[in-house]
């Protein structure tokens, strides 16, 4: 399609499905939304997808429901060539829990284990320090990479993924380097993911405060600090809404944030609301994007209620 657009700083998208019949199409819809936001962020992209059913392969000891509930699925990514099965065996030996591998791409896999997150993450770090964990949870898979959003989605086969909600980000870096680790989503706790359009100004202060309480960031990225702040509040017992209120209270800067948990989908903007956001809601879904044209291909969107989220208000949907 012929078009001329000037680039703008970062694009975010998200889709929370209410109608289960749309679930098989989640990846396809997220991909077209993310592609539409390429003009806002061509340097890197990432996506977090939430799905309910992950049946263990036949013969796997994790076949029963209780084990599946204990199992966490870790999105892993390696900067070097890696034998995922060998890594799985070594993690299993170290943690004493079975590990199953679902390859995503040559450099990425989703790895299931009931070992518990602290034990599993420590084992990965010890055995394969070049392997990063973009996210983990019972429902959530996270992929992120540098390059054009369309190419990234194609590489991981995201158009074929099903699920009930997902968020994505196209990045135009301003505060830190263009690397996979610096790209969004930031997912510092189980099933928690955050994408951000904007820039925080006091993030170094907040990062020091978090560090004093034992919460450390993996990167020097400003958005990661917000994700860690929310995760640390939630670890103390706060719900997502409380966590977002903490961001509004403690963090200074410009932001439209889209944050998801296993059951919730939330949008919040700073008090000036000068980073764009538009929401389209129908009986079938809630969709959010930096600009409307990312929503334009969604089914039934022409009949949706389309509105702009208010500043300092937490717009939240639960399943």
């Amino acid at each position: 399609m012929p078009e001329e657009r000037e680039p703008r700083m970062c694009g975010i998208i998200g889709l929370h499905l209410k109608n289960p019949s749309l679930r098989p199409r989640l990846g396809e819809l997220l991909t077209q939304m993310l592609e539409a936001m390429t003009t806002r962020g061509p340097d890197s992209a990432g996506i977090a997808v939430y799905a309910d059913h992950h049946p263990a392969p036949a013969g796997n000891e994790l076949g029963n429901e209780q084990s599946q509930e204990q199992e966490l699925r870790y999105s892993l990514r390696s900067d070097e060539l890696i034998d995922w099965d060998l890594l799985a065996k070594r993690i299993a030996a170290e943690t004493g829990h079975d590990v199953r591998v679902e390859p995503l791409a040559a450099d990425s896999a989703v790895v299931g284990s009931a070992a518990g997150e602290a034990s599993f993450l420590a084992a990965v770090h010890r055995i394969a320090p070049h392997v990063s964990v973009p996210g983990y949870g019972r429902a959530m898979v996270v992929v992120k990479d540098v390059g054009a959003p369309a190419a990234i989605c194609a590489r991981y086969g995201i158009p074929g993924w099903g699920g009930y909600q997902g968020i994505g980000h196209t990045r135009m870096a301003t505060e830190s380097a263009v690397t996979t680790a610096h790209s969004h989503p930031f997912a510092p706790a189980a099933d928690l993911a955050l994408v951000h359009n904007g820039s925080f100004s006091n993030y170094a202060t907040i990062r020091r405060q978090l560090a004093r309480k034992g919460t450390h960031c993996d990167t020097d990225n400003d958005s990661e600090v917000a994700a860690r702040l929310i995760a640390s509040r939630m670890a103390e017992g706060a719900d997502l809404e409380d966590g977002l209120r903490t961001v509004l209270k403690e963090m200074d800067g410009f932001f439209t944030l889209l944050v998801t948990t296993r059951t919730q989908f939330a949008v919040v903007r700073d008090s000036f609301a000068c980073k764009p956001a538009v929401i389209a809601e129908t009986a079938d879904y809630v969709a959010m994007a930096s600009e409307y044209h990312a929503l334009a291909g969604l089914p039934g969107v022409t009949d949706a209620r389309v509105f702009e989220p208010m500043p300092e208000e937490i717009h939240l949907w639960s399943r």
Partner: protein
Amino acid sequence: MEPVILSCADLSARQINAALAALPDGACARVLEPRGRHNLAVGLSNRVRIDIEGNAGYYIGGLGQGPDVVVSGFVGWSVGENLLAGSVRVKGNASECAGASSHGGTIVIEGDASSRAGISLKGGTILVGGNVGHMSGFMAQAGVMLIGGDAGDALGDSLYEAVIYVAGKIASLGSDARVEELTDADVRAVKALAELGGFDHVQPENVTRVASARGLYNFDALKDQKY
């Protein structure tokens, strides 16, 4: 005359605007499948009627000096920015900065407008059927706004000579904005504006008039004795 049909599925914004600019006065055009496209119907000076059939993007109808643009959906930021004459009507909600810096003409938002509606208004007329967000009417210099619903925080901050009428509640007034007594002339003006917008829900005698207290017009060297 049959309307000219232009589809965003086939044409760029530049191509659509060139085709619209070439229309003779009195012509009609339908712009189909806008799908959030920015910069549609921008910079036109012919007296034409343009229907944008769907949700559109940023700067719709901006810099216009003649056309009547109707959007049957939502619009993004800065609809009708710097409008000089003519009109833009949005049947859905509008994003931020609706009618920013408009010098003339009429912008009608049938739904809600977001923050900074009518920022730096320079003489245009902005009619919003629903609510407006924070900092609406910021530094508005001339012209008039009618808000059929509620206004967000800091309404009319640093107002000059524009007047803002609000039918609903005002979350807070901005610096140097004040509520003034509603005169008969105001009621007549609001009645005409409500009719122009098609706002049946606005009762002209019950609106609040907001205008500048003019306290910021001159620098006060003795203010707070800090200088």
